[in-house]
């Protein structure tokens, strides 16, 4: 199905084009404020800023090379307690949009007055590499963006296996993959269409060329994905391997605090309920021949897998934040693929619907039915 979009020229560069779009939007009043990433004074990171004047927009960098704070967390901070009276627009990477969509399904973000805009994401540079040599990284990212290079190895590892880099249910999307000097801006929702109408932007351009190139890149990325899953499997599957991989974990719980999906006010593993008495631990150590500290390294990860893997968008923030370089994001991506497949669910890719654990059908999951039947004594008469 082909869609019509607005043809945009990329001569001035994508960043400028996006800035212009937001300025025009503010001018015409389609939204009253925008949230954009602005480079911090120290020049080694970016911060989300809520702003409403054109001068500030000029200082913003709508497509930053790094993702220090997952955009969904910024939206969560803004709308956790409901909407304000103004309309706010923001531009984010696909994974940030998808996380925001998941959070809205979990009632943690209210998207009613938020306009989401996304773009073909070339990936994000890992924060650890960026803050050491920001200028170099900045340059290489801008080159990747201008050269439409979607398989740059300077990006995060999970970006290399991201098949949704151009696929999110954002209201508006800037596409430019595989197009020469132009880009295409199209709408995915009624809200988006209304905005394009008010701004008098004509949808004349066909999106088939863009779509084709996205599909080609997607295919390559899904191949990489299978390779990466294959390589990670022997490292993490089975408890022994998992323990080897997480042996160096320092229990800082950074992976949880940067995760956009982990929204609980207090995690069980940070609560006093998970702490044990000296007697209990000494007894355990005696039975097992020894126990390690900090406690619950694996249980913490298994708990997180059970609680959030169904909504995991593989943004890679956990891996970025890990001080001891455990490939957390790859492991979660691998597990999330398994658990989401059970429900044929793909986190954040559709704006409507609910998360799998909030809905049910009366007749479903026949495999599980089989399992339940297996647990039943043979010749059981009940039906």
């Amino acid at each position, binding site marked *: 199905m082909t869609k019509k979009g607005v043809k945009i020229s990329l001569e001035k560069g994508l960043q400028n084009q996006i800035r212009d779009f937001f300025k025009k939007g503010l001018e015409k009043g389609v939204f009253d404020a925008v949230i954009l990433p602005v480079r911090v004074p120290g020049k080694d990171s970016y911060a989300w800023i809520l702003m409403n004047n054109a001068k500030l927009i000029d200082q913003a960098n709508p497509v930053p090379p790094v993702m220090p704070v997952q955009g969904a967390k910024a939206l969560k901070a803004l709308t956790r307690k409901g909407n304000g009276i103004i309309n706010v627009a923001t531009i984010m990477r696909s994974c940030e949009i998808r996380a925001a969509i998941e959070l809205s399904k979990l009632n943690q973000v209210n998207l009613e007055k938020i306009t989401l805009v996304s773009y073909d994401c070339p990936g994000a540079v890992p924060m650890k590499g960026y803050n050491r040599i920001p200028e170099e990284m900045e340059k290489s990212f801008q080159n990747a963006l201008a050269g439409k290079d979607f398989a740059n190895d300077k990006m995060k590892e999970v970006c290399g296996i991201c098949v949704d880099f151009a696929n999110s249910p954002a209201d508006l999307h800037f596409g430019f993959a595989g197009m020469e000097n132009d880009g295409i801006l199209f709408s995915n929702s009624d809200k988006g269409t209304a905005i394009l109408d008010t701004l008098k932007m004509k949808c004349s351009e066909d999106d088939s060329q863009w779509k084709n190139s996205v599909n080609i890149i997607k295919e390559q990325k899904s191949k990489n994905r299978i390779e990466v899953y294959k390589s990670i499997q022997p490292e*993490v*599957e*089975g*408890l*022994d391997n*998992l*323990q080897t991989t997480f*042996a160096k974990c320092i229990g800082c719980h950074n992976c949880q605090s940067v995760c956009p999906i982990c929204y609980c006010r207090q995690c*069980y593993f940070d609560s006093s309920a998970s702490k044990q008495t000296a007697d209990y631990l000494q007894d355990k150590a005696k*039975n*097992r021949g*020894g*126990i*390690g500290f900090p406690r619950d*390294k*694996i*249980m913490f990860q*298994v*708990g997180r*897998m*059970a*609680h959030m*893997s*169904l909504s995991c968008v593989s943004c890679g923030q956990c891996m970025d934040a890990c001080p001891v370089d455990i490939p957390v994001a790859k492991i979660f991506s691998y*597990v999330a693929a*398994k*658990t989401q497949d*059970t*429900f044929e669910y793909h986190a954040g890719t559709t704006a409507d619907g609910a998360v*799998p*654990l909030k809905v*049910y*059908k*009366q007749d*479903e*999951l026949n*495999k*599980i039915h089989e*399992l*339940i039947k*297996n*647990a*039943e*004594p043979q010749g*059981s008469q*009940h039906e």
Partner: protein
Amino acid sequence: MSDWQPKILAILCNWCSYAGADLAGVSRLQYPPNIRVVRIPCSGRVDPLFIMKAFQTGYDGVLVSGCHPGDCHYLSGNYFARRKFAVIKPLMEFIGLEPDRLQFSWVSAGEGERFSEVVTKVTKDIQKIGPITKMVKGV
């Protein structure tokens, strides 16, 4: 090891399976003494973490039992429980626990006999798998 007996945590819903277990008791039906019962309001209350925690603490098996689909006291709790089971199974495979250590069943309040059959069957299954070493020996 020949006298090893499995320890099984039975998480039973208050309205059906727990009453079923009660009926098995008052009917003086025999079943293996390997289960330790936890009564919960609804099988939908079972968090995947409860089950993992049980294995970590050293239980050899976990049995979760609720009302039959459609008979839930809270109308739909057991359907949600079924969805949660579907998440736990791939996770158990992932961490390398035998999936059969975790078993589910639907037992209603009138099925005392069935409860004793289920417990017998589950105990036998877990006896076959043997004691849990993976979660326990580790760090």
